[in-house]
């Protein structure tokens, strides 16, 4: 009996539609998150993550509707993050059928939010999403870096906001540790350096967070091919997450699981 490594596709959802292009045949509506969620479930996804990037708060109702419709049809765990600012937001998402809620920026300005949410709803459903970047690291996607003062954090990784464009000066490893202390049940660790490069996960970042916390860690950012996933797990990730490589059909969930199994890692096989 060994716990299986979780393979998790992430869907970016804007006003109820999947934003990043999705390239699947046999889909009636490739922009419908509910249809995609169903398909990923059938393909062997172990969990699903919806990242709500809806800018206008007026469109938040659409998100709840999408979550409801997904939870009605897909019987695997669903995490929803993006724009979660209050305990009421968490409550609404859980009531709509989310199993876990990801909290990111709102906790940076008010860490107690994590504790309040974990106390009220249970640690198991609160995920701290950390967008980490190397301080003075390589600049990715031509984003202009706006570090606070350019000084290095103790670990060399800092927490960012605004999709990696803005530094906070907070040490990423310390922040993950703090989140665990405040009661979150899991860390969703996104490398903003690796994100979009398709060069593989940031193994150093994963291994530093793994050593610092004893809650599960989901590694995200950098997956480009099926063989990228096993090293992330060997570096200490309990779960691996990717978006575009799955959506574009570059690699399938089954291929990722085959690679993980070939590396002597345990996966859940779906017929």
């Amino acid at each position, binding site marked *: 009996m060994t716990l299986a490594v979780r393979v998790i596709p992430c869907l970016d959802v804007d006003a109820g539609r999947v934003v990043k292009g999705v390239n699947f045949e046999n889909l009636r509506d490739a922009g419908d998150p509910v249809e995609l969620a169903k398909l990923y479930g059938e393909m062997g996804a172990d969990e699903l993550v919806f990242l709500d990037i809806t800018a206008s708060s007026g469109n938040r109702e659409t998100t709840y509707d999408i979550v409801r419709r997904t939870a009605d049809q897909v019987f695997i765990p669903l995490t929803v993050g993006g724009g979660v600012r209050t305990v009421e937001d968490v409550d609404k998402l859980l009531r709509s059928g989310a199993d876990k809620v990801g909290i990111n920026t709102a906790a940076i300005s008010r860490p107690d939010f994590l504790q309040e949410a974990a106390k009220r709803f249970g640690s198991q459903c609160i995920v701290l999403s950390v967008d980490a970047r190397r301080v003075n690291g390589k600049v990715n996607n031509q984003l202009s870096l706006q570090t606070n003062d350019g000084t290095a954090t103790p670990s060399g990784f800092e927490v960012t906001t605004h999709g990696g464009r803005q530094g906070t000066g907070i040490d990423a490893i310390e922040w993950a540790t703090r989140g665990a202390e405040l009661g979150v049940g*899991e860390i969703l660790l996104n490398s903003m350096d690796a994100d979009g490069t398709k060069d593989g996960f940031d193994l150093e970042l994963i291994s530093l967070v793994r050593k610092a916390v004893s809650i599960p860690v989901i590694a995200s950012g950098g997956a480009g091919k099926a063989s990228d996933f096993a090293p992330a797990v060997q570096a200490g990730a309990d779960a691996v997450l990717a978006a575009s490589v799955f959506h574009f059909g570059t690699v399938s969930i089954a291929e990722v699981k085959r690679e993980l199994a070939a590396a002597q890692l345990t996966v859940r096989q779906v017929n």
Partner: protein
Amino acid sequence: MNSRPSVVVFDYGSGNVRSAQRALEHVGAEVTLTSDFETALNADGLFVPGVGAFDACMQGINKYKGGELVDRRLAGGRAVFGVCVGMQILFDQGVEHGIETRGLGQWPGVVEKLTADVLPHMGWNTVSVAPNSKLFAGVESERFYFVHSYGVTKWLLPDEFEKTKAPQVTWCEYGEKFVAAVENGPLVATQFHPEKSGDAGLQVLQNWLKGLK
């Protein structure tokens, strides 16, 4: 005449009740989401969810007379299915953060923090299914979705009773062995979430529904 079994998902303020409701509907149950005592008493099956802290769940259970509800159903031989903390509260006692909370005492035993490097135990694990299990029929070697930090590591009842059938215990291992499921006549429970365990979980729910009248 309605041939679908009626199931009440006990809505006492804990858990993702919507998922449980939809999963049970998916496998053919007529589901009502309620905390109403009479409705819950008279349904063919009672499904007791539960997430979060043991003491918080017990507060909710006590508020809606859940203990009496379970007792009266079992006295009449009517099915009850506890899931996750909904299973844990069926034991004598829970200990979380040093707080000891009395459970419903259907089985002896204490719910304690598991010993493992990474907690919660979160994800898909296999189980060692009790011989002749009806609940796991057809999905004995499948994986099920767990998310918990606490569990029952010591099952205190004998494996065989002289005159009645002993409860059937299914085990899982994560850091240490713990109880993954119990089948005890009309009372069954799983530590994992069948409503979140894909097709394998739906099969468990369907197996349970088959036994309801």
